[in-house]
């Protein structure tokens, strides 16, 4: 019979879900956006993705080995792979290899293992690494390029790709690089231009939604991210709470401000389809380890993320705020978990036994429809 006395206790049945399965589902949901990113930005994007994932896996193995823990379950559970993919998708697609190595190593070592490994980290490792890179290497991290999809004749060849990733970096030629939409808006607003002059020629909602635009490796196609996210919801791999609260908050805030001054505040749709908002709402803020446990807590967390994204995008020093927003709310998670516990059956929110009112009792007896004293 069973080796461990704990395992021999009830229940003697299991729902069958596993960690690998959960991580696998998330990775599968990210696959379309990932493939699209590679299609859009060519060999260098693929190189970067591989470099980061490899770094993450090696870093994880090294940390486990140093801690004297067994490699097998932790390395294969898919969480490291997911961290690597999420980080890669959030970077400029033609970033040089060392950005990938530094970022991947930072995510795994500092983001995860300093806290004690899987399940222990306070912050989302990928976002922590993204912020570190953004702060340390602002130039490399904000060099965006227009899409140069495969089969369009503008893509670099395999060898050129190797050169871009591992060689001297971007063969900068004029017209090849550009700002992201949000960056462009920020610059324009900084010059006191009204939106009516900034946006035309840069913003076509349809193209933005499809992802035919400059941006991070995997965050350009709002449509594919949305589909992936909805699939996750349908598979119940994530709860509805965080995405709904986060997107809802951004939409509400953006609508209110846009309505108050359409020339200064961009419209809600632009917020939705640009930057990492959808990626953040479905794939990053929903990271179970770093988000609250209770539904109520998740709603507060999601709303907090949304509000911070809007504030940073609109008034902050960076055009994009998802990484900062998520990491800030990660820091608040222990507090949220402490104060927003689910209400226990038979207890009030304050934990006192919940009395049964005379009226409820009468209603339960079927003698009174609950319309007042009988």
């Amino acid at each position, binding site marked *: 019979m069973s080796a461990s006395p704990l395992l*021999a206790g009830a*229940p003697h049945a299991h*729902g069958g879900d596993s960690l690998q399965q959960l991580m696998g589902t998330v990775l599968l949901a990210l696959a379309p956006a990932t493939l699209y990113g590679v299609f859009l930005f060519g060999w260098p994007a693929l190189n970067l993705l591989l470099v980061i994932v490899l770094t993450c896996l090696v870093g994880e193995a090294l940390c486990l080995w140093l801690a004297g823990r067994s490699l097998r379950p932790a390395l294969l559970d898919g969480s490291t792979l997911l961290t690597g993919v999420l980080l890669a998708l959030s970077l400029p697609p033609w970033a040089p290899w060392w950005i990938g190595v530094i970022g991947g190593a930072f995510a795994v070592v500092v983001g995860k293992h300093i806290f004690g490994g*899987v399940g222990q980290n306070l912050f989302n490792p990928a976002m922590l690494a993204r912020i570190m890179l953004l702060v340390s290497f602002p130039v490399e991290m904000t060099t965006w390029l227009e899409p140069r999809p495969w089969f369009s004749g503008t893509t670099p060849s395999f060898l050129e790709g190797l050169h871009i990733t591992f060689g001297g970096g971007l063969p900068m030629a004029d017209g090849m690089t550009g700002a992201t939409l949000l960056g462009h808006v920020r610059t324009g607003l900084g010059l006191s231009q009204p939106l009516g002059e900034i946006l035309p020629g840069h913003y076509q909602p349809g193209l933005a939604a499809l992802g035919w635009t400059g941006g991070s490796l995997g965050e350009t196609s709002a449509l594919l991210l949305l589909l992936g996210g909805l699939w996750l919801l349908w598979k119940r791999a994530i709860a509805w709470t965080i995405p709904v609260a986060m997107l809802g908050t951004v939409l509400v805030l953006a609508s209110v401000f846009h309505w108050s001054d359409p020339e200064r505040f961009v419209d809600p749709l632009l917020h939705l389809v640009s930057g990492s908002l959808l990626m953040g709402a479905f794939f990053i803020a929903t990271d179970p380890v770093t988000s609250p446990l209770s539904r109520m807590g998740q709603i507060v967390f999601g709303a907090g993320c949304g509000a911070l994204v809007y504030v940073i995008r609109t008034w902050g020093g960076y055009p994009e705020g998802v990484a900062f927003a998520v990491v800030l709310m990660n820091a608040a998670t222990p507090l949220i*978990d402490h104060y927003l516990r*689910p209400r226990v059956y038979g207890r009030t929110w304050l934990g006192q036994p919940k009395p049964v009112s005379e009226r409820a009792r009468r209603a339960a007896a079927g003698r009174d429809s609950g319309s007042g004293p009988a």
Partner: protein
Amino acid sequence: MRLHHFRGGVHPPGRKQFSADQPIQSLPLPARLYLPLQQHAGGPALPVVSVGQQVAKGELLARAQSAISAPLHAPSSGIVVDIGQFTAPHVSGLPIPTLVLDTDGEERWPEREPPPDPFGLDPEEVATRIGDAGIVGMGGASFPAAVKLSKARQAGVHTLVVNGSECEPYVTCDDRLMRERAAEIVDGATIMLHALQASRALVAVEDNKPEAIQALREACAHDPRFQVLSLPTRYPTGSAKHLIQLLTGLECPAGEPGTEVTGILVHNVGTAYAVQRALRHGRPLISRIVTVSGGAVAEPRNLEVPLGALAADLLAYCGGVSDDLVRVLSGGPMMGQPLPSLQTPIVKGSNGILALTAAELGPEQLPDPCVRCGRCTEACPMGLLPGEMARRVQHDDWAGTLAFGLNDCMACGSCAYACPSRVPLSQSLAHARGALAEQRRAEQKANYTRQLMEQRQARLARQEQAKADAAAQRRAAKDKKQRAAVTEEDDE
């Protein structure tokens, strides 16, 4: 009737098809029956027979010890051969006081007057008769039924819920009872309504038992006080607290031992059946229906079993077990206990003996770390944070575990069922409960020892004091004598 909702719960595969279509059969009478004196919540029963005594079927073997206790009757005629210590039907496998009866195969009932019409009796008298028949809650909790009924009548309970939800996988004994003996169940429930002086009976059955629902509807069609409700299948609908919430939206306040404050009393269908047998036919509770099932059982069945038959007897009658047997459970897979040995007897609360294979138990794998996914919280019908509690149990932080609501946990196992990391959640909580109980026992013992010590010290101090007093008296007397002598000298 509009149903309400309870939070959490899980949907384990029913696996009832193994035994659901097997009609109830009687287990051939075993040659020897093992009857633990404690088959119920409360104090153990006290034997009123002696070793070597011949007893008739249904004769009282042991009487209730106190207000919360239950008597025990002979499941068959025979000779009491021993009153000793035998394996308890519990994981610990610790021996408990057990009465052993060698049956003579005559199945002799004593001559008895037919019982009077229960509806002519005083409600309290009905409850007393239910208590005297040794009837306890047959759904698993085994709380003496009469105590529950009297308390509920005094509290003015208006509704009896007859619980036929049977939400544990595999187990089909209540299903069969409802299909085959619906009229008796309804009659028993009617008697309970009288004992309660309640005005309404709701018969609650999960919708995966349509035949049972149909049979019950037909059986109670004549009585407008009855309503049969088909409930969505979800574990743990059968829990009294959650059934009440599902039916009325009311929650039983935390810490209340019973459900009377909600105006509702829940009793299992098996209990209603036993009440009918006792009050209509004068038969005490001496047998029950047990489902024998699981992938390792050759012929799964529903058996009517005399109390005291061994799990081994039941399994043998069902064609024995195959080699891929991994674990034998008493009860369902969600809350059942692994049996330490097949030589454990069926008691009043046993509803199933399951012989499970490795494939049914799922791969045995070491738990992954908790990733705080919150699924245990989603699954917990009590609204607890099982992952947080288990984390505290791991660090032996009992105060923290209690602060997170250990005492509100109903040990339903939904959390561990749902956890993708297979963290042994409910198992850790069971461990914590055990450790805390152990701690309380140790404290009680320490208190007792301290009291003894204090008493001894007080006694010693008193003795010292007495000695000192005596010495002082002696000294005083001596002084007086000396002084007297001196005075005498002076006088001289």
